[in-house]
């Protein structure tokens, strides 16, 4: 089948460096002494821990519960004892700690009860739930929860399901090997996605420097009897960017302001399809992933590694050479330096590269921009990085947005070609985060203003109402004067009754207010981190007895006051 290919502008061709790590088949990493499983391994809400220190967990047992719809479950990668649920260094450039479940494997690798499912017999909604509860997220590196991408847009028919096997980052070969060795399961996983999204076509894009993977997937498609198109796309970084691959295969351009389903396209990584199939057809949640261990190592190879395996155990597999000075997670174009040897493998860890001075020489000092425009030529999104750079430098963030800074995918092509060695991507990240934080601040200020105005309005209204009431009462008093003088008992009765009515009204108002307070959750408790929630729970627990005391005290004083009257 002939498939017309489209082109994306720009891009670069760094040395692929993929050959060393494809010589051996995927190996299975041995069980490490300790697993550190971060709860937050996907985009979206932070899963709530379901276990505590001392608990025994089975392999595949859920240890983190999805927090909301855009969130994904986390599971125990093997059986063993939970040593702690605590903050551990994250696999993130910042190295900040993140809440993690520390498991000491017992070596038995004992599965929790799990059953294969026939997804054809299930409601689509149920399939999405299973995927969420199995921790299936985008394994290309973005780790977006897959179930949330598997609902077609209501207004736009789904034209194309794009499956990303391009793997354009240098050094990285985990998808290549997965396609070579487990093509059939990938194809069956794509079948699940196809059945949920009902696209007109399924297009599998693989860079043409991976002919073996192309052949393997073609054979698998034939074997399973699907009509998916397997397309070799020209090798050019970043052909594996979702937007670039969609552009190459379908000719559609997805702007930053839209999500791809609104354009009738959805895109998944091959490894994601594989894990989806394992989750549905075998009942196995995502417990491990294929990681390329390469770079300045004695034994470059792909390994199936349990999530939570600390970097030091991963390196033992590859054996870094003595002059290794850093470890990157992800590719050399978009990856980052691992903050610590204790940082664990997570769902986003597609590749670990040992780097040396010779392999990644220190960046030459930054020179002024000479406006050569090489960055604009290399930009796969046809942006003008040099303009965004000047405006970022000048902190003119409005202008950076005019130049579509949010279309930037931070692929690093501009920095790669810059003769002045300007870290352009860093400037753009800075601008983006500044814009986000300013928007947050503005929203908060707006909310405060709205609250203030509402309060002013209420004060005014209450004042007016009070004045009206007083006027009315005064008027009533003057009319009441006559009956008052008419009979003795009335004078005694009326004030007592009025007092009681007033008290009753106050009690009723307090009760209403209490109910309202309970009904309305204060806004600032939404979207808190697990740690913050924990803290709140502790404070509430401390408060409860005090509050009980307070209420009894109030009741007592009230009754004593009543007695005094």
């Amino acid at each position, binding site marked *: 089948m002939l498939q017309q290919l489209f082109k994306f502008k720009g891009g670069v061709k760094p040395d692929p460096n993929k050959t060393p790590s494809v010589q051996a088949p995927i190996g299975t990493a041995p069980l490490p002494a300790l697993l550190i499983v971060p709860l937050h391994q996907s985009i979206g809400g932070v899963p709530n821990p379901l276990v505590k220190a001392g608990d025994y967990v089975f392999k595949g047992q859920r240890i983190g519960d999805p927090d909301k719809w855009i969130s994904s479950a986390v599971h125990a990668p093997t059986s063993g004892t939970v040593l702690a649920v605590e903050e551990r260094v994250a696999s993130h450039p910042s190295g900040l700690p993140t809440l993690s479940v520390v498991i000491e494997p017992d070596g038995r690798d004992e599965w929790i009860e799990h059953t294969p499912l026939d997804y054809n017999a299930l409601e689509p909604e149920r399939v999405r739930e299973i995927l969420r509860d199995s921790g299936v997220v985008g394994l290309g590196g973005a780790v977006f929860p897959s179930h949330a991408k598997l609902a077609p847009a209501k207004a736009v028919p789904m034209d194309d399901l794009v499956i990303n096997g391009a793997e354009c980052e240098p050094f990285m070969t985990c998808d290549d090997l997965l396609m070579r060795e487990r093509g059939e399961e990938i194809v069956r996983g794509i079948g699940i996605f196809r059945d949920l999204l009902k696209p007109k076509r399924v297009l599998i894009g693989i860079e043409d420097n991976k002919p073996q993977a192309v052949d393997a997937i073609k054979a698998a498609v034939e074997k399973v009897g699907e009509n998916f198109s397997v397309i070799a796309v020209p090798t050019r970084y970043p052909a594996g960017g979702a937007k670039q691959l969609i552009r190459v295969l379908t000719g559609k351009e997805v702007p930053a302001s839209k999500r791809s389903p609104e354009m009738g396209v959805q895109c998944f990584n091959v490894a994601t399809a594989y894990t989806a199939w394992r989750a549905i057809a075998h009942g196995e949640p995502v417990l491990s992933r294929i990681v390329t261990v390469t770079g300045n190592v004695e034994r470059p190879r792909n390994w199936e590694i349990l999530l939570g395996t600390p970097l030091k155990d991963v390196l033992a597999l590859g054996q870094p050479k003595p002059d290794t000075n850093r470890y990157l997670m992800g590719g*050399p174009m978009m*990856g980052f330096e691992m903050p610590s040897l204790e940082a664990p493998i997570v769902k986003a860890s597609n590749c670990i590269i040992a780097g040396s001075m010779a392999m990644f020489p220190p960046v030459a000092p930054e*020179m002024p921009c000479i406006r050569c425009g090489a960055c604009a030529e290399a930009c796969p999104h046809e942006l*003008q990085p040099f303009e965004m750079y000047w405006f970022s430098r000048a902190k003119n963030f409005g202008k950076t947005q005019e130049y579509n800074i949010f279309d930037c995918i931070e692929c690093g092509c501009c920095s790669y070609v*810059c003769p002045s060695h300007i*870290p352009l*991507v860093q400037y753009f990240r800075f601008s983006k985060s500044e814009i986000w934080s300013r928007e947050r601040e503005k929203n908060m200020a707006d909310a405060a203003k709205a609250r203030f105005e509402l309060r002013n309005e209420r004060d005014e209204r209450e004042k007016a109402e009070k004045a009206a009431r007083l006027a009315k009462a005064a008027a009533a008093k003057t009319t009441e004067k006559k009956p008052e003088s008419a009979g003795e008992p009335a004078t005694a009765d009326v004030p007592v009754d009025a007092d009681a009515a007033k008290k009753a009204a106050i009690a009723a108002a307090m009760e209403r207010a209490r109910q309202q307070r309970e009904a309305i959750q204060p806004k600032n408790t939404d979207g808190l981190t697990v740690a913050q929630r924990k803290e709140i729970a502790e404070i509430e627990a401390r408060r409860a007895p005090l509050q009980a005391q307070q209420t009894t005290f109030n009741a007592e004083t009230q009754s004593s006051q009543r007695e005094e009257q």
Partner: protein
Amino acid sequence: MNFTTPPYLSQNVSVRRVMLQVLVALLPGLAAYVWLLGPVILVQTTIATIAALLAEACMLKLLKKPLGLFLGDGSAIVTAWLIALAFPPLAPWWLIVVGTLFAIVVAKHLYGGLGQNPFNPAMIAFAVCIVSFPSLMSQWPPVDLHAGIGEQLALVFGYAPRLDAMSGATPLDALKTALKLGEGSATVTAVLADAQTFGRIAGKGWEWVAAGYLLGGLWLWHRRIVSWHAPMSFLAGIALLAGALWLFNPAQFANPLFHLFSGGSMLGAFFIVTDPVSGCTTPKGKLIFGFAAGILAYLIRSAH
């Protein structure tokens, strides 16, 4: 641990490499120049280079910028060579030095240094000198001047009187003057037939210097140091205007090819309008900028 940022790979490019390639691209034109007039142009290039580097070093020092980083970037040398090639080859040494100093100190560093100058420093030097020293800046030696290197150096260093016989006009000026003197009776064809001043296409000998610049420019394009947009639109601007007038009256207006290979057309097309700092950056901008510069160049060389 150092905080490092992606990408960890970078192409083997730098400002210095870009500038060095520009210098290499100037070599064919420079070689043709030497063949035409002798090694005096190399002396002028050296004078300009030394002046430029000294001025650059002083300015960097004064402005407290890293000396090694910027002095080595080669941009001052490019400016120096462009000045040496654009100025009359037998101009006195101090004229070259004055031009170079003005270019580096004022046009470059007072505007903020590398990457910040709104105008091409070499062209600012040319403009300042042609306004300040108009007669010296228009003394172009006739190509049949068979002066030895000694005589040429004597002129450059000022211990020989600047004889009028030693200075002529550019082929463009020669054509213009001849047409003016002819009062309508002289035609372009007749003037260009003068084999002493004119060669096959344009000025005798000078056309080969222009061809050298063209060759270097094409190499720069091949190396992707410059894109085709600015040079092509610049040459198109000249050629279109020249062609239109030539078709209108071939007796009074020289053909487009003559204009493309005369004066600074080729040097301007590949080495001046392509200057990234003072030129345009987007392809569309380069096209507009180049074309307008071409039109302007033609108008300036035609008007008096």
